[in-house]
C-alpha cells in the first residue's frame, strides 16, 4: 500500500553538477556519446554543426594573471519544466515530436516523428538540441560497439540528451519483475554521472528528499524549483525555463555567469541570493 502511494507521486529527475569539482576532462562527453550512439563527423573541428548531447564549456572570470580563474561547465539538456511542462522546446514543436513526461520530468525526443523543422532548436536557449545534418556513419569495426538500447538517428531530425532514458526503462522493467514500483537511487543513473572521475555530477529524483540531488539543490517547488542552497544556481534562471539541471559553486563569479544582469542591477533585489 505504502509502495503504491510512493509510485503515484511524480518523479522529477535532475542533476546537480559541482563546478568546483569538475576538471573539464570530458569523460562525461565521451561516456554520453558511447552510451547514446551519438554520431560524429570525420572532421569535428567545426563545433557549430557537430553533435554533443553533453558539452563542456570553458568559462573564465575575465581577469588577468594572477587573478585569472577558469571553470568548466558541463551542459546536458536542462529538461526544462517551464510552467506546467511547457518547456521552451516542447510547446513549439508542431508535430508533438518532443514531449514532457510528467511522471519523470524528462523531455523526450521522438526521432521517427520529428520532421526536422528545427523550431525546438531555435527555442532552446541552452543550445542543447542538435540537428543531424549528415547521415550517421560509424567506422565499420565500431558498429559492433553501438548500444542496442538506443536507436541511432537518421539524417534530418533533431536529437538531444535524454537523461539516458533507456536506463530508466531497463531499471523499471527490472523493478517490475521484482514486484517493485519504486527505484532505488543508484538503480537509475545517467552515463555521464557514472563516468565523471571527480564525482562532480549527482543524479536523482529532485522530488525525493532521500536523494542526494534533493539534499544538494533543496529545490523549492512552490517557486518553480528554485534552489534553496545559496551556492546552487540554474542557467538562465530569469527566463523562467525552470530547468532540472542545477550547478553548484562556491565562487560568486561562476554563479553570476549563469545568468544575465543589466548594469548596476541590485542582484539581491532582483534575484535569489
Amino acid at each position, binding site marked *: 500500500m505504502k509502495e503504491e502511494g510512493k509510485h503515484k507521486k511524480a518523479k522529477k529527475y535532475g542533476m546537480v553538477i559541482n563546478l568546483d569539482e569538475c576538471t573539464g576532462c570530458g569523460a562525461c562527453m565521451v561516456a554520453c556519446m558511447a552510451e547514446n550512439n551519438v554520431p560524429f563527423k570525420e572532421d569535428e573541428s567545426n563545433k557549430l554543426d557537430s*553533435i554533443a548531447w553533453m558539452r563542456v564549456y570553458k568559462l573564465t572570470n575575465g581577469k588577468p594573471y594572477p587573478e585569472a580563474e577558469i571553470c568548466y561547465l558541463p551542459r546536458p539538456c536542462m529538461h526544462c519544466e517551464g510552467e506546467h511542462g511547457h518547456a521552451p522546446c516542447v510547446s513549439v514543436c508542431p508535430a508533438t515530436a518532443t514531449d514532457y513526461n510528467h511522471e519523470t520530468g524528462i523531455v523526450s525526443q521522438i526521432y521517427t516523428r520529428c520532421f*526536422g523543422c528545427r523550431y525546438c532548436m*531555435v527555442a532552446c536557449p541552452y543550445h542543447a538540441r542538435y540537428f543531424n545534418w549528415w547521415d550517421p556513419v560509424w567506422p565499420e569495426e565500431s558498429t559492433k560497439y553501438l548500444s542496442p538500447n538506443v536507436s541511432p538517428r537518421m539524417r534530418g531530425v533533431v536529437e538531444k540528451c535524454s537523461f539516458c532514458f533507456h536506463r530508466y526503462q531497463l531499471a523499471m522493467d527490472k523493478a517490475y519483475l521484482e514486484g517493485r514500483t519504486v527505484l532505488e537511487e543508484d538503480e537509475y543513473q545517467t552515463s555521464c554521472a557514472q563516468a565523471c572521475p571527480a564525482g562532480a555530477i549527482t543524479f536523482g529524483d529532485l522530488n525525493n528528499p532521500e536523494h542526494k540531488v534533493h539534499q544538494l539543490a533543496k529545490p523549492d517547488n512552490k517557486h518553480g524549483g528554485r534552489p534553496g542552497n545559496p551556492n546552487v544556481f540554474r542557467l538562465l534562471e530569469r527566463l523562467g525555463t525552470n530547468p532540472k539541471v542545477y550547478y553548484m559553486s562556491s565562487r560568486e563569479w561562476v554563479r553570476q*555567469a549563469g545568468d544575465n544582469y543589466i548594469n548596476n542591477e541590485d542582484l539581491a533585489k532582483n534575484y535569489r541570493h
Partner: protein
Amino acid sequence: MDSALIPEGVKRCSFGKFAIGIILVGGVLLWGVYAMLLIWLKGLNQTNMNDFYGFAIWIWADLGVIALGGGAFFTGFLRYVIGKDELKNIINCAVLIGFICYSSALLILAIDVGQPLRSWFIFWHANVHSMLTEVAFCLSCYFAVLIIEYIPLILENRQINKVPFLHNLAHNMHEVMVIFAATGAFLSFFHQGSLGGTPAVLYGRPFSFREGVFIWPWTFFLFTWSAAAYGPCFTLFVTRLIEKITKKKLVKQNVIDLLAKISGWTMGTYVIAKIIDTWYWATVTAPARGFNLIDFYSNNPFYGIWILIVEIVVCGIVPALILLTPKGRNNSTLLFTAVSLACIGVLLNRWVMVLQVMAIPVMTFETWVMYIPSWQEVATTVLPVAYGIILVMISFRYLPIFPQERELNP
C-alpha cells in the same frame, strides 16, 4: 505566333522577345532547381545552417514573401468586404502576387525541413500549442483560397473564355468571390499573426520574446498589421515595375492613390504600434531578463542600432509620411521610393525577427555567431523569385490582369 491567346485590344512584345525573357529567367530558375535537388538528395548539409542557426535565410524568405503577399488578402478585403470598388482594377495583380508569394512560401518550407516526406506529420500529429501548427493549417487553407481566386483569372484568357462552361464558371466564381475574400482575410489574420507569434513565444530568447494578450504575443497583431500595410506596397511596387518595363500606364492614378493612401494610414498606425512595442520591450521585457537594449546591438560585426533606425524611421516613418500626403502619392518618383522603402522595411523586420534572434548569445559565456548562406541556399531563395517573374510574364501576356489597360492605351 501566339496572338490568338493575347487579350483583345492590348499590345504585347513579339513572341521572340518574350521567349528570350523566359529563357533568361528560366536559366536562373533551373539553377535554383538544381540546388533544390541537391538539398533534397544530399540533405541540409548543403547549407550553411548549423546548430546555432536552426532558422536561416529560408525562414526569412518565407516570412518575407508572406508579408509581401499580404496585399492579396488586404486588397481583397477592401474590395469585396469593405466595398472599395475602384480596387477591382488592381485586385487581379494583388491576387497574382499573393499566389506567387504563397506558393513560393510552401515550396521553401518543403526544401527547409530535414525530412520533407514527413511534412504531413504537422497535420497528423498537430500540436495545438505550436504557432507553426497554426501557420501550417492557415497557410495551406489560404493557399487553397488563392487558387480559387486565381482560377477565374485564368478562365478569362481569350481562348479559354470561349468555352461556354468555363465562361460561366468564371462569371459565377466572380459572383461568389466575396465569400472567398472574407475567408482569405480571416485565414490571413491568423497565419500572419502566427508567424509573428513564432519568434515571440520563444521565452528562452529575450530578443524576440514579447508579452501579449491571452495566448497571443503583441507581434501576433504587429505582423498581421504590417502585412496589411506593406503588402499593398509590394502590389504597387510590382505594378509600377511592370508599367516601367512595358512603358505603359496600366492602372489609373485614382486607384493607385486610394491603395497608397490606405496603405499609408495602415503603415502609420503600425509604425506607432511598433514604436510602443519596441519601447516596452526595451525598457521592461528585456531588462527583466537581464538584458539592456544595447546588448542586442553591440559586440558583433553587423547588427548595430542602425538596423532599428533603418527599420522604424527610414523604412517606416518616411514611407508612411510620403503615402499619407497627396503630394507624395501623386509624384511617381516619391511614390515609387515610398513603396520600395516599405518593402525593404518589412523584409528587414522579418530578417531581424529570424536571423538576429539566432545571432545573439543568450548564455553569458557564448558569443555572437554570424551566418553567411551557402550558394545552394541563395539559389533556392532566388528560385521562387525567378518562378514569380515567369508567372507574372505569362499572366501579363495572356490574361487580363489590368482591366484598365485597354482604356489607358488606346
